[in-house]
């Protein structure tokens, strides 16, 4: 793979409701921020990839609402409908395929739709939709299966929520900086057994953008380039009953291929930081297992041992993660942005010392059916 880098990033603050902003406004805000970050003007943007979802936006051809705001006027442009990590991957392919730079921008407003109706529409219209399955209830099934298989407790998951909301206190973009105890999480309102309110990510509005450049064009950026060392995606079977929900094998496959591209042999030793898609507290340990940082069933242990804390050996979600702000689609791009900021040393109060190699992760579909893994590096 040719050398390509992320040279500019921009994000809105994430809020429960950004009432004053239409999609266009949010996309414009982060497009300008990413260009300013890179020291680029619109002339430096060769092409654009927008990321949106018609269900979330309540609009057919949801990308239509943001083309000009994304600076796509009279430029080549396309749209990925899925998590921002997938959109950014396509943006990277377009740089490898001939463009000098790609701007990737994602937006969503959870406040304008009903997340239950929208995520219920992921499920099979004949067999599963009428059961009432949605993102939360399907994840509850996965959490139960995970606890059952490895004898895990709800308290172990609660600890992840405590850690990530605490981390969010250092991140000015996060929506839910909270000082919590395991008891607080345990006593929060039950949403879908075993998931309680504080095990679940919030409904959020926001947008994010990154600029990807080839080696030559990266030199013209103001920022220190963060190199894309490897990226891969993979999808598991569709029906929940066809999957082993405790074995994230699509994630394993994506991680393996991303590690091979990046020359990573022992992830726990060679990766300095992880920003992963913790839409629910139990997901963090499960995805860490899938990424090969520990043995199956041991993901919760490494959180208990403090390994994933800000001052641990492998800080996970120093930004506060998806638990602290969950603009759907945008959230994966935010993981990439946070990894970039950490590698550049620009993460501010949640900066981790000496981050050379970071992993960013996003997903699509129920219970993490489809995953995308990014390896980013200083060199």
């Amino acid at each position, binding site marked *: 793979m040719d050398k390509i880098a992320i040279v500019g990033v921009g994000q809105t603050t994430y809020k429960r409701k950004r009432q004053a902003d239409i999609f266009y406004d949010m996309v414009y805000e982060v497009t300008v921020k990413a260009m300013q970050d890179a020291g680029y003007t619109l002339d430096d943007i060769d092409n654009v990839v927008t990321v949106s979802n018609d269900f979330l936006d309540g609009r057919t*051809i949801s990308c239509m609402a943001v083309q000009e705001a994304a600076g796509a006027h009279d430029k080549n442009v396309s749209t990925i409908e899925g998590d921002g990590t997938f959109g950014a991957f396509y943006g990277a392919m377009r740089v*490898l*395929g001939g463009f000098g730079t790609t701007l990737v921008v994602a937006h969503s407003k959870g406040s304008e739709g009903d997340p239950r109706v929208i995520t219920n529409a992921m499920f099979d219209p004949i067999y599963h939709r009428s059961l009432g399955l949605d993102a939360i209830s399907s994840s509850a099934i996965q959490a139960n299966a995970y606890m059952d298989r490895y004898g895990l407790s709800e308290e172990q998951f609660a600890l992840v929520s405590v850690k990530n909301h605490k981390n969010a206190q250092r991140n000015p973009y996060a929506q839910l900086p909270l000082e919590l105890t395991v008891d607080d999480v345990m006593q929060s309102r039950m949403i879908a057994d075993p998931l309680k309110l504080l095990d679940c990510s919030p409904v959020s509005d926001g947008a994010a953008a990154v600029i990807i450049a080839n080696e030559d064009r990266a030199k013209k950026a103001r920022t220190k380039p963060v190199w894309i060392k490897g990226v891969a995606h993979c*999808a598991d079977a569709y029906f929940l009953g066809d999957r082993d929900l405790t074995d994230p094998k699509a994630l394993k496959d994506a991680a393996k291929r991303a590690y091979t591209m990046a020359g990573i042999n022992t992830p726990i030793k060679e990766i300095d930081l992880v920003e992963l898609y913790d839409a629910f507290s139990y997901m963090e340990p499960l995805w860490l297992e899938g990424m090969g940082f520990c043995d199956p069933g041991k993901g919760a242990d490494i959180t208990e041992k403090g390994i994933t804390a800000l001052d641990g050996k492998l800080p996970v979600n120093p930004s506060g993660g998806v638990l602290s702000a969950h603009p759907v689609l945008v959230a994966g791009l935010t993981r990439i942005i946070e990894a970039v900021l950490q590698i550049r040393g620009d993460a501010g109060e949640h900066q981790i010392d000496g981050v050379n190699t970071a992993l960013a992760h996003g997903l699509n*579909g129920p219970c993490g059916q489809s995953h995308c893994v990014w390896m980013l590096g200083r060199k």
Partner: protein
Amino acid sequence: MARRVAIVGTGQTHHKSHRIDVNGKELINEAVTRALDDCELTIADIDAIIIGNMDHFESINYVDTWSIEGSGGYMKPIMKVTTGGTTGTSVAIAGYYHVASGIFDKVLCIGWEKNSESDTTTAIVTCSDPIWDRFSYSGAIPSLATEASAYMEQYGATQEDAAYVAVRERTHAQNNPYAQMYNRPITIEDVMNSAMLTYPIKLLDVCPRTDGACAVVFAAEGVAEKIAPQPAWIKSCSVRHTTTWFGDVDYNTGMLSLKRASREAFETAGIKSPVDEIDVAELYLPYSYAGLKWIEAIGFCGPGEGPRFIRDGNTNMGGKLPINPSGGVMSTNCIGATALLRTAEAAIQILGKGDKRQVPDVTNAMATGFGGCWWSDVIILSKDKP
């Protein structure tokens, strides 16, 4: 360095208004199986998949993950592309970049739609801005009618001129057993006597709604030649999705996005005189008047010359530049697949697999996509490597 990329195989369903014999995944699988058979590959050979359709037509969210059993995406990389009417060409262009990037060698592109399960216009209405555009330019027809009347006013074109385009499409469709309108030819009188929808557009001036799917296999240089004796090389692809509001479209200046995308695509492909160097074109013409005006935007003839160019038979089979040997969008319109069908049909002409709709001696072929807010995609394919 970007790699050279070619189309090595295509597959499509037998298109109908209602395919009640299959569900969405089975429809997808029909096209996928045919594409893989066409290039003698199995799903195990495929490195990545791109799929596209319009969410609100079938009301399925995350079609990439939903479609796995139909697409063959189990434990494979798959992503979804959606850009409205241009979805099919957006999917094809994504296939191109998947391979050109050097990351994947063989990529499967899928476009599909089961319009019989949708309330298509209700869904399309929501693409317009809810405050400014939805009460004037809602659905597909109003902005097309604006363009058509402006064109007639500007150049004195007639409803009959447009009917020639409609008849050409349906005549060509009689050579294409996959087309929805196969075995259903029409005459100029049929078009002129069909029901007026929105002046000057009549029922037979517009595309139908179709259940159908299309799949196309892209491969990298070095791999492609081993799969297809004559791969269809991608010379260029260009996209212009500029406008957001229908009110911002200038309906008088010609089709600006198509003009600009064509210009860039021809330049990259080294084509100086499109009408002489393009041997066959599969154009996304959603209604008959586009067949007059948009060929001017592409540069096949001058402004206002479209009607004469069509009436002289230049674009018929056997003419100087056959357009839509497949019968085009007005004979088959499974929306998410429609622009991918244009790409596939253009590739078929280079692969030499057109059977009764084959145009002889094709070196360069052109495919376009249209959709969104007057957006255009252009892909140039060739027997020759770029």
